[in-house]
């Protein structure tokens, strides 16, 4: 295309425009995909959220009724509270865990490759499969976790059968499954940091601790931003481990928002109401993500 355009003198483009055109050309497939598979369903959900719809009969327009209902729906507000608790527990654990593992496997020792691979293996399992495996590990009497605790003289709880521990269990499974992925992101970031910085710091007498705080952490900022934002967004959408491990129980203790949305849409057939909740969740995640990006904006281009 560019070549034909060039041949006609009237359409000669400046180098800058040509570059732009090519750039956008490369973006087209992705943008089209996003429009069809992401933007369109969101608009669709917005439309459905203004209706009363059980999926079987016709849609009935109800304006903002669904949004009014959810503001007084105790179960929805509870589900937001549970989701926020989950996010607050999950995001920092994921950050510290992934960074810690990355630092460990960043050593230049032969056997490290084995650990690197094994930490990454759970990532290749689907979260559903991981949850099924862990549901056996969590069993009060026959589960591995409580048997290990028994060795050190501790009496483990019924992990999934207690309102206190069920959400903790969900966090553990999601961490176990996802930590390897973020570890790789941090590892890539770590290996991008020039060695000279550390050498110079050592010569100046900086200890390991201060090298970590003053070199590693600041220079990992792009990786950290990525890990924090993606972990944050995905943890707001926690569903698979809840569905498989606890189905929202016991006594709704793990009924996170996406699970409650699923229940309303596919069990209670309140698809309009579920869409309204999905829109609210979408807005919450959007606002928080923008705030996060603003705070963490990359200031360390070097």
């Amino acid at each position, binding site marked *: 295309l560019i070549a034909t355009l060039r041949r006609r003198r009237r359409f000669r483009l400046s180098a800058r425009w040509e570059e732009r055109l090519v750039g956008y050309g490369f973006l087209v497939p992705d943008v089209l995909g996003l429009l069809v598979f992401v933007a369109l369903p969101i608009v669709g959900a917005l439309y459905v959220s203004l209706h009363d719809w*059980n*999926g*079987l*009969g016709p849609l009935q327009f109800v304006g903002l009724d669904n949004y009014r209902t959810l503001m007084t729906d105790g179960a929805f507000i509870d589900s937001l509270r549970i989701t926020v608790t989950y996010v607050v527990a999950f995001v920092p654990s994921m950050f510290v865990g992934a960074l810690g593992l990355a630092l460990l496997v960043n050593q230049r020792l032969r056997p490290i490759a084995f650990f690197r691979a094994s930490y990454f293996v759970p990532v290749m399992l*689907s*979260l*559903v499969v991981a949850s099924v495996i862990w*549901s*056996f590990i*969590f*069993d*009060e*009497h*026959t589960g591995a976790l409580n048997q290990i605790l028994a060795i050190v003289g501790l009496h483990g709880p*019924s*992990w*999934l*059968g*207690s*309102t206190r521990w069920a959400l903790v269990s969900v966090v553990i499974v999601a961490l176990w499954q996802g930590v390897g992925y973020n570890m790789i992101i941090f590892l890539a970031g770590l290996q991008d940091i020039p060695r000279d910085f550390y050498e110079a710091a050592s010569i100046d007498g900086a200890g390991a601790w201060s090298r970590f705080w003053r070199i590693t952490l600041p220079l990992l900022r792009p990786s950290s931003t990525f890990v924090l934002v993606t972990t944050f967004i995905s943890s707001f959408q926690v569903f*698979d481990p809840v569905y498989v491990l*606890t*189905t*929202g*129980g*016991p*006594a*709704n*203790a793990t009924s996170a928002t996406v699970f409650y949305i699923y*229940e309303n*849409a*596919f*069990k*209670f*057939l309140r*698809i309009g109401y579920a869409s309204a909740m999905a829109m609210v969740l979408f807005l919450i995640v959007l606002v928080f993500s923008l705030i996060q990006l603003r705070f963490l904006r990359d200031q360390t281009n070097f």
Partner: protein
Amino acid sequence: VSGDQRQGDRTSLDVLVERFQRGRISRRQFSGGLLAAGLSLPAVAAVLEACGGGGGNGGKTTLQWWKFAADHDDGSIRKAIGRWNKQNPDIQVNFQTFPVSDYEGAKLTTAFASGTGPDMFWISAGAFLDYVNSGVAQSIDDLFKNNRSQYLQAAIDAVTVNGKIYAIPFEMEPVALYYRKDLLDKAGITPPQTWTDLLDAAQKLTTGHQQGIVIEPSQGVYQNFTWYPFLWSAGGEVVSSDWKSSALRTPAAASAFDLWGQLVNKGYAPKKTSSLTADSGPLGRGEAAMQVCGFWAIAQLKSGFPGVPFGITRIPVPSGGKPVTVYGGWRHMLSSRSQHLDAAKKFASWLWMQDEIFPKDWACQTNTKYSPRKPVNDACSSVFDATPADYFTNQVLPTARAEPRYPDQIVKAVGDGIQAAMFQGKSGQEAASLAADGIDAYLKNYKGAH
């Protein structure tokens, strides 16, 4: 609710691979479905799978029949369809199954929403009214014109709305208390008949890693299903007879919530099980001495744990209460949106009412499930009158009520009450009023039939 729900735990992936291998879907659809399965978004997978259906073929009628997947008895259905398809070249039946966890919600509903629903399908008690209220269910009184007297009245009532029949009932699986004879003998305990006996026995039988009793700890349809006998035998009901309000604000209902709360809080029953307790494994493996379970457990225990001595007794009653239990089972529904309603009626009535082979096979050869149709049970007498099934036939079945067709939001409200008693230390009365509040809020805006 039925024992089948335990069986069909196949993933979307299994189904996808199977359909690909049988040439039901193209390579491209397979890749698409695979992609969706990889994203582990059941809804996306369902949508993609739905795109694979359709397509008319000339003068021949093809009926679509959908059901959840159940490995052990789907083969017997396929065999019956094979015989029909051979005899009726102009009406071909195409049978499709889906993972049980996706079947009613993500699969059936989305299909009807997008206008690609099947001509006939199986429906559970909980979804029955949704389908009647929204006009998807076809009334089929004419199918019962000549054989109404063969059917158990209660089974017909369970599928009747405002005098019209909306589905074919075809199986009944009542619930009872199973126990391990060896463990009870060792502890010197006789099978409990009253709630006092039950608590006493559960306490004595809880030792070390052995639980006294297994009741369903996870919230859901199955938990409510197995709890209703306790509620009913105390004289309680979930909703008032006019469906205007909850009927749970009674001491009777409170006592039933309280009983299940006690069994868990005192440590006699497990707080969590690795699979639905429709699976009698805990009893078979000796992890528990008693278990509330359905008729299907006889076959499970005999084949899974041969030689393990088990007994059956009716669900214990509070002092002065009368024995009552519940039975579950799927229902065969026809879609009012079907283009081939007459053909669908013809096939359904052949399958469940005229054919000599399949109904008997379903009831007592491939499965052990009572039929609501008397001639079928008579044909099965060699199975149903043999020990230990005869206990169900003579003692349990006559006291069984059909699983109530409460919509899922009522199921959820009742479950919230049971969970509060089990896991939040709420008294029976508090649990009952929590459940009643949820039911009242729902019924206030409910305009459908009951």
